[in-house]
């Protein structure tokens, strides 16, 4: 059994106005789901449990499934979870809880870094298959959903063992005032001196004080790219990077968002070691988690971070399909 969380409302923030970021429409998101479902069906999966939404992806997916069935195409049955819908992140949390109760083998996630973070915050032990439909997308790789669906199906059907398909991922645990409030980030935590979350996205760099990343990738967009142009660190390495911004060091240019190349003054940077508590600067007024300002801090709040090398599990899509190919799983005759 495979679960599906498709966020109908990611990619709606200010970056569409300031930097020509994409706005993936609901009809396209529904088509992504249908292509993944087709691939799941091809691997023998006959049932998908999906998060419902109001007038978005669900309606278009149901219409598409009916169309496919009319034409005699075999697709898995998609059952939308029985839950109330709030059109907020609470829906994702509730859906993940229900998928965990149902015992799905894997969860396909459509969304940006924020959606993936919402899924992992609720369940870190069911492997996720990320499909990027958000804006920054440092965590989910850009990949055709047909292939992602294939990988999920190959794992769920048992054709590819977990020892091959499933991989550990790093995450950052955030704790305010010794656990009064906790949260997490899959890719980056940014401490900003602003004291309001405002329009949430991060695009003005002058208020950024510190950046913490689980991996530093110059191929990404967002804060991982800032770290990545200093010292590339892969997803597989056990450490991350901590970057302090300020005068007196190096000036770097990085893609802090789609269509946004910014120059930042970097005071220093250092590796972020696993399981070592780190204090965030007391100047922090807000914390951005995976590219969006999330937490407004009060003066005097103490924030600590910790890099967890085995924070959550996902399916390594490339490794899974390559292994399947070597084993001849795709060869019918």
């Amino acid at each position, binding site marked *: 059994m495979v679960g599906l969380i498709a966020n109908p409302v990611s990619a*709606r923030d200010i970056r569409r106005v300031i930097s020509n970021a994409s706005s993936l*429409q*609901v009809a396209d998101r529904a088509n992504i789901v249908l292509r993944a479902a087709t691939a799941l069906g091809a691997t023998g999966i006959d049932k998908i449990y999906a998060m419902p939404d109001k007038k978005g992806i669900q309606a278009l997916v149901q219409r598409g499934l009916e169309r496919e069935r009319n034409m005699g195409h075999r697709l898995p049955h998609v059952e939308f979870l029985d839950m109330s819908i709030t059109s907020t992140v609470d829906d994702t949390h509730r859906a993940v809880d229900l998928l965990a109760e149902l015992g799905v083998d894997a969860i396909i996630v459509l969304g940006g870094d924020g959606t993936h973070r919402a899924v992992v915050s609720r369940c870190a032990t069911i492997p996720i298959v990320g499909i990027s439909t958000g804006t920054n997308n440092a965590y989910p790789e850009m990949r055709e959903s047909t292939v992602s669906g294939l990988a999920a199906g190959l794992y769920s059907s048992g054709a590819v063992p977990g020892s091959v398909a499933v991989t550990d991922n790093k995450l950052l645990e955030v704790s305010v005032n010794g656990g009064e409030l906790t949260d997490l980030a899959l890719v980056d935590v940014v401490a900003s001196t602003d004291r*309001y*979350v*405002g*329009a949430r996205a991060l695009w003005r760099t002058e208020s950024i004080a510190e950046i913490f990343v689980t991996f530093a990738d110059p191929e990404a967009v967002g804060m991982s790219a800032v770290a990545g142009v200093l010292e590339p660190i892969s997803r597989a390495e056990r450490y991350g990077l901590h970057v302090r911004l300020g005068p007196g060091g190096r000036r770097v240019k990085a893609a802090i968002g789609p269509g946004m190349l910014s120059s930042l003054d970097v005071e220093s940077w250092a590796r972020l070691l696993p399981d070592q508590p780190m204090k965030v600067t007391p100047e922090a007024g807000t914390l951005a988690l995976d590219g969006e300002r999330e937490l407004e801090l009060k*003066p005097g709040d103490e924030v600590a971070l910790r890099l967890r090398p085995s924070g959550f599990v996902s399916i390594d899509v490339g490794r899974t399909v390559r292994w399947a190919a070597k084993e001849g799983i795709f060869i019918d005759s």
Partner: protein
Amino acid sequence: MADNPFPLDTEGLLQAYRTMRTIREFEDRLHTNFATGEIPGFVHLYAGEEAAAAGIMMHLRREDRIASTHRGHGHCIAKGVDPKAMMKEIYGKVGGSCAGKGGSMHIAELDAGMMGANGILGAGAPLACGAGLAAKHRGQGDVALSFVGDGASNQGTFLESLNLAAVWNLPTIFVVENNGYAESTSRNYAVAVDSYVDRAAGFGLPGITVDGTDFFAVYEAAGEIIDRARHGGGPSLLECEMVRFYGHFEGDAQTYRADGEVADLRENRDCIKSFRSKVEGAGVISADRLDQIDGEVIALIDEAVAEAKAAPEPDLSELLTDVYVSY
């Protein structure tokens, strides 16, 4: 006081607070006084939605034009229309913004760039296109904004205006004030897309969604889209997700709302409470200073109501004046 970690200086923050509090007090007072039967016509109150009007209008100049809706008091106040003249207008008295002959849904003050509240749903969008076209020809960087509710966003006039603004690259901004209800019809029943951003994209213009109960979210987003429009970047759509504290109109029994819904919104999504908590919490403005503004606003609205009640009704001889324009 601490360093200011907000995008406005202290004066700007105080102005934003005063605007929101003035709107709230104005609307709360109308809620109370309408029940006595002393106000003619209909009123549709903006209470709960103040952060959108204030956050957007803080970026506008007097020359910029707005086209409002049936729920227009907040837009008027934030754009600089005199609350006392508005109150007289709503009471139907001499000295009102439109000589006491238009009432709540027709308050206009062209000198303030307020082209009018509007009783016709979706009718403001074409007006904002016209004002945007004029601004584009004048070439002085002025912009035009149209406000529309989630219900009226289904009107053809609104959708055609999106297209017109896009093809002419007008400095026109479409603000969708999504309070979740078209009169009593849930947005989820009546709007076929989950996000208005999809609608904007269908017409080739960018759209963004913000929490309309967070003043700073609206302020930041509106600043970017207004600046873009001023500098030739063309139209955009801004969806503010917001909440309505009162009914669609005064007298609405609101049987379509869940038990406790409004109480929960007032407790957890009150834009003024949230603003106070942020600026006080950061130590930038004291509670005493904000309380002082509360007192000044209450006194202003007291005076506005007293003056409106005391003012005479328009003379019968004025029945047909201001109705037709001779060219």
